């Protein structure tokens, strides 16, 4: 396979063009990896700056004007507003479930009712988060109920 890297003109944006006869496994993998890279979020912990793949994030939570990405065990700060995350991860399995939380639907293990009219979502890492009543219709719509 011939690989060409060109420098774009000053007013051109960076672009990847794949010229192929068939979409074989190798090319699909390249496309996936490019798409994945595009969606990765820059996150900050006490010591490191990491690139997080959305698939590894369980939920985002806004606390005191800061937004945190909660993974299985680690928590990272993300320098984005919750609504910006909501927009950028639209159609990528993330949904707002309360004023301060956006959850990855793939990480929800089960949902159970609470006595006060809210729902509680149990995640795959056994963490529990609250689903506000006003966000339930949107969740049901996404799930096709």
């Amino acid at each position, binding site marked *: 396979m011939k690989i060409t890297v060109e420098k774009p003109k000053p007013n051109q944006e960076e672009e990847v063009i794949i010229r192929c006869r068939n979409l074989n496994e190798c090319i699909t993998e390249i496309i996936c990896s490019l798409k994945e890279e595009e969606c990765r979020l820059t996150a900050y912990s006490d010591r490191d700056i990491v690139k997080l793949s959305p698939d590894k994030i369980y939920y985002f939570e806004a606390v005191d004007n800061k937004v945190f990405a909660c993974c299985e065990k680690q928590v990272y700060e993300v320098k984005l507003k919750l609504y910006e995350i909501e927009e950028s991860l639209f159609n990528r399995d993330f949904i707002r479930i309360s004023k301060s939380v956006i959850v990855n639907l*793939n990480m*929800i293990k089960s949902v159970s009712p*609470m*006595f006060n009219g809210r*729902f509680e979502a149990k995640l795959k890492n056994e963490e529990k988060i609250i689903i506000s009543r006003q966000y*339930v219709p949107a*969740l*049901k719509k996404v*799930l096709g*109920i």
Partner: protein
Amino acid sequence: MKFFTEFLKMFTYITTGTAVAFAAYTMIVGYETVAVYTVAEIPLVGVIMSLITTVITQREYSTNKKIGFALVCHYIIVSASMVGLGILFEWVRPVPEEIILMLGCVLFVYAFSFTMFFVSMKREANKINAALKKRADSKI
């Protein structure tokens, strides 16, 4: 604004519940007639108890244990208000039998409406869980 909409919602539920509790109580006691001003007294009781309920439910409770405790407190306040206002409006005579009967009626309405509410929530949760499972299976 949120407080007001929540208050209106509570007012609808509680006034209906009060009317049902009052109807059950008068039927059991065997009153043949009910004073016409009761029509105004029931919404008034509804307003007072809706205010109490809205204030209690404004607080966020994180666990079912804390919510359960808040519910018990709420039931005690609602029962006391219902008996107090019942005596004031002469729905209940201040004798133990009638007070106990009124408490029983409030408990019945409270338990019935809470059970119905929780059952509908449980059904909704089951639907969400089934949809989540279907979604996860389709991704494999």
